[in-house]
């Protein structure tokens, strides 16, 4: 194969002593992207399962695509709806507007994040790890459409360096990289991340879409709830996703497609995902019965980032509980906490981000308790037999 031959030819220039050694990590990444590495096992099992982390991460990205594509469409939809021109806009008009609004964010996220990863891998002499493929697509999906690119770049850089790499890279981080990026934005630049001015794109791009007046505002349904009014959207819109919100979070249907892919391939744990929903539902039913929240439990579930967080972020295997028993507690805790924050804390209309962050924080504790049970059972066995 000629491509293979070409790669073999240029390979020596990237190896130690070669002219382009400084770009070894880039070459490595490209080579393993094109071809399955044909290194064979030296010790240990002589055969291996075909699964590897590249395949796993690729499937998570595939699972995220429906939500991303719908998000693009919804950005166009919200813009045209706000301008009152919904009737004259075609599907492609709206989609292209959204596509152009989201594309720079995707590019910035990947360039900044992967750039740091490549450089880090080169510095450490390690292979490039695939984790950022997923984080890099999630981060633009959980910010408002009006989030400036420089903020996004800063957030990506912060979370890749301080949340992932200093802990040792993919698999060693304690907090979910995407959640950490959003936390960074939320607490550093809250005016750009929350309120009723950020959720709808207000400028036309290359003549597409509409420029809205400066005074335009649109709150998310949860935002309306936090200010004491009832959301004015229909349940159907909430489920299909025609509501203002972060780019990828609005459509329950698109997220459900992703959930099916993740659960079917076994990449996400149904235990974690299911118990996040269980926790959220139980809490929402309770609060509704006590009269503390005006909306029904199913509205709590379909609004905001609950579904997105439950499906794509709580199930991150690295930062979630790793024991099978622990996953039930971990998921339930996140679901319940998300609704508690929404209902009890007037400062935060949305609670999913904080819930996952705190869930990440207590996951090791949950695992510690589960593993400790096994340890004390074993210790007991000794004393019993003596």
């Amino acid at each position: 194969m000629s491509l293979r031959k070409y790669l073999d030819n240029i390979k020596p220039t990237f190896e130690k002593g070669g002219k382009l050694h400084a770009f070894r990590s880039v070459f490595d990444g490209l080579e393993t992207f094109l071809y399955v590495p044909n290194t064979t096992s030296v010790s240990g099992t002589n055969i291996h399962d075909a699964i590897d982390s590249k395949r796993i991460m690729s499937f998570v990205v595939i699972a995220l695509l429906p939500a991303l594509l719908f998000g693009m469409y919804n950005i166009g939809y919200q813009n045209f709806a706000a301008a009152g021109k919904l009737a004259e806009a075609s599907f492609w008009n709206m989609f292209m507007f959204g596509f152009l609004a989201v594309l720079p964010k995707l590019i910035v996220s990947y360039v900044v994040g992967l750039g740091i990863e490549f450089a880090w891998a080169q510095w450490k002499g390690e292979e490039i790890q695939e984790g950022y493929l997923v984080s890099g697509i999630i981060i633009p999906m959980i910010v408002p459409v009006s989030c400036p690119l420089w903020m996004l770049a800063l957030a990506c850089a912060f979370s890749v360096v301080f949340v992932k790499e200093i802990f040792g890279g993919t698999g060693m981080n304690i907090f979910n990289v995407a959640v950490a990026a959003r936390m960074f934005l939320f607490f550093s630049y809250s005016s750009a991340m929350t309120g009723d001015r950020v959720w709808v794109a207000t400028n036309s791009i290359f003549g597409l879409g509409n420029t809205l007046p400066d005074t335009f505002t649109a709150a998310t349904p949860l935002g309306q709830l936090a200010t004491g009014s009832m959301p004015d959207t229909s349940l159907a819109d909430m489920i299909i996703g025609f509501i203002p919100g972060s780019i990828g979070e609005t459509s329950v249907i698109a997220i459900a497609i992703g959930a099916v892919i993740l659960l079917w391939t076994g990449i996400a744990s149904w235990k974690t995902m299911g118990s996040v929903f269980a926790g959220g539902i139980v809490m929402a039913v309770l609060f509704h019965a006590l009269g503390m929240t005006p909306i029904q439990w199913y509205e709590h579930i379909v609004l905001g980032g609950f579904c997105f967080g439950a499906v794509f972020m709580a199930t991150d295997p690295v930062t979630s509980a790793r024991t099978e028993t622990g996953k039930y507690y971990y998921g339930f805790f996140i679901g319940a906490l998300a609704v508690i924050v929404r209902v009890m804390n007037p400062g935060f209309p949305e609670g999913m981000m904080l819930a996952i962050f705190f869930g990440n924080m207590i996951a090791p504790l949950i695992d510690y308790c589960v593993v400790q049970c096994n340890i004390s059972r074993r210790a007991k066995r000794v004393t019993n037999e003596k």
Partner: protein
Amino acid sequence: MANVIKLRKGLDINLRGRADKGTVEPVKSADCALVPESFGGVVPKVVVREGDSVRAGDALFVDKKHPEVKFASPVSGTVEAIVRGDRRKVLCVKVKADEVQQYVAFGPKDVASLDGEAVKQALLEAGLFGYIQQLPYAVATTPDTTPKAIFVSAFRDMPLASDFEVELKGYEKDFQTGLTALSKIQKTYLGVGVRQTASALVDAKDVEINVFDGKCPAGNVGVQVNHVSPVNKGEVVWTVDPAAVIFIGRLFNTGKVDLRRVIAVAGSEVKTPSYVETLVGTSLGAVLEGRLKATEHVRIINGNPLTGRKSTLEDYVGAHTSEVTAIPEGDDNNELLGWILPRVNQYSTSRSYFSWLLRKKEYDLDARVKGGERHMIMSGEYDKVLPMDIYGEYLIKAIIAEDIDKMEQLGIYEVSPEDFAVAEFVDSSKLELQKIVRNGLDMLRKENA
């Protein structure tokens, strides 16, 4: 009715090239070599010199720390070479076989009339004691240990493994004598597979029989110990390979050290996978002569593809080798865009491939790792294929961190590297789990010595 123990976790990997049970051909090689490393954890002291003549049953080397543990020569002949590696480590002791074999006469004994100590002495004297292994540490045991129980697993369920019922055919009496001999030392448990029917197994006497119904690695003796009588700190369990039980039985029935055993020659790179009868120490070159499909890009494995060692034709049948397998090496295989293409011919437990659709299909797997080594990313992968009451992932982490207390608490004394073989196969982070466990066990053995 025997005890049936059902295990839900595990994975059977259906590889192409399973040995045909119909024929057992004899194989002989001119030279024979005993490999100390294949006994596990033995530091050898060679007691013969090049040029010495030995009979089958004479000691070639002894355990340095326990010189009473001798390792018997499989053949009679002249010591041809003592092959040493780095830092003068003894790699093997080669013996050139005589035309007519002479055996040291230990004299047949009636096992029923012996006590445990006499059995032990007879095994030590004949150089067969070193075939008995132990938990903890998964190494050859020493005579100063007092086992709380002895375990024999008569079923092998690793991919391409030999079927013990084939090995047993014709040697039923020796097998029973061997079991009786072991039961004199301590209570002996025999683990059999749910599909095994040979009466020498299911009706074996003097032992407690447990029937295991489950997927690989249910046949691992370590897994069976974990479910019947788990090893606590300070306890020792002896484990004996069923083929070694036959050696022991033969010693008492015939008075000779006769290390003939039936092994499977299997794998997709073998022309007609079948069984051969050969001696421990026979060269793999002789075993595989005329049987390989190709000479290049072939991986020869001393053992099965999961737990066996990467090997060459210059290697020898080891003390616990029950099969020799050959699979494609795969280093000449360049697969494009593996992270996204369907790759129907690849086997995977993950549903991101399609092997779940083709359950019955036999796969032809090569030796590629098929991915880069990563930190542990996915959780629960090991748990699905580790049918023991052990948190595999946490144990592995404790070993990597060299945290001895944690290793003990998490049950490292109950495991052997082979128990993690299937987990190593499915691991998407491609960590070398068996090597990690081996390191952990060696570390503790040193610490507790």
